């Protein structure tokens, strides 16, 4: 009803104002809230797997240390910095969209795409090395440096591949969303009045970055002090 009253309002004619919203402000708030709700379910999704991870870490501390020692800490550390830089460029893309600077928005989105791709490339390199070293769980698992702990190290690797795989899947989806946003920004869809999609995409990207901030110490930097093995 109100929409009819406001029918002559200038915002009503904005090409990206969906008909169910009164104005762009309401539409913006609704889309941001929607992403928050989605991310809340994502926190519980990753949190459930991390809870299982902690149960086994408490049960098999030596195997977790051994598992952590199989990781390439330098690659993981570089990827952490790469993701943090990508979050900065993502935040700057949102800011430039708010300021109505089309070229800078596109440039920052492309930079985010670049750093996201670097992350996935490094991750692919790590996966290749793990595969060659027989660290993929199942029939291909041939790691036996400490034979009595090998089954538990394999369990660690289940969590490693599961958690980083789920994270990488989120990154791939993020790259797809970025390509879409780059196309829209290039077409000049965004400006001070309408930049919701870039901001919503940014929330998603920051979330995926934060998940990695927890995965890095949990999977790569397991302190071995006081835990004896082999």
């Amino acid at each position: 009803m109100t929409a009819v009253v406001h029918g002559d309002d200038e915002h009503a004619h904005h090409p990206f104002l969906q008909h169910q919203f009164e104005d762009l402000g309401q539409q913006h708030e609704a889309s941001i809230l929607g992403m928050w709700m989605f991310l809340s379910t994502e926190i519980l999704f990753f949190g459930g797997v991390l809870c299982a991870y902690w149960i086994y870490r408490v049960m098999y501390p030596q195997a977790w240390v051994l598992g952590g020692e199989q990781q390439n800490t330098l690659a993981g550390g570089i990827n952490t910095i790469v993701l943090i830089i990508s979050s900065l460029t993502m935040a700057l893309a949102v800011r430039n969209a708010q300021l109505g600077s089309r070229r800078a928005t596109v440039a920052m989105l492309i930079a985010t795409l670049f750093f996201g791709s670097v992350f996935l490339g490094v991750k692919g390199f790590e996966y290749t090395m793990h595969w060659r070293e027989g660290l993929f769980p199942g029939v291909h698992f041939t790691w036996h440096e400490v034979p009595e702990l090998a089954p538990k190290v394999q369990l660690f690797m289940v969590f490693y591949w599961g958690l980083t795989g789920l994270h990488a899947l989120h990154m791939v989806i993020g790259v797809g969303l970025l390509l879409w946003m780059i196309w829209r920004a290039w077409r000049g869809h965004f400006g001070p009045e309408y930049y919701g999609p870039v901001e919503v995409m940014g929330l998603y990207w920051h979330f995926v970055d934060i998940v990695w901030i927890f995965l890095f110490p949990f999977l790569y930097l397991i302190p071995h002090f006081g835990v004896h093995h082999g």
Partner: protein
Amino acid sequence: MADEHRNEHAAPHHITPLTTYIFVFVARAAGTLLTWFASTVDLGWMNTPIALVIATTKAALVILTWVVVIGSFVWLGVLFVLTFADYLTRFWAIY
């Protein structure tokens, strides 16, 4: 940013100053180095809590304004507390 969205009419514009983004970036990069460094120093049982505190602080730097997601962290806390209240008391003789 959430507070800026109260205005129902205009499209929200709260433009965060560039310096804020640079500060958050530098703090997070420093946190990463600190996490790595802390993992190489023997702090006894403190190693894991310190890594958790640094990671959580870094996360908080990014999500400080996400008031809504605090609810899901509460539920995640319930999951962890009840799970470990079970597991840590079940095989107490082993640990």
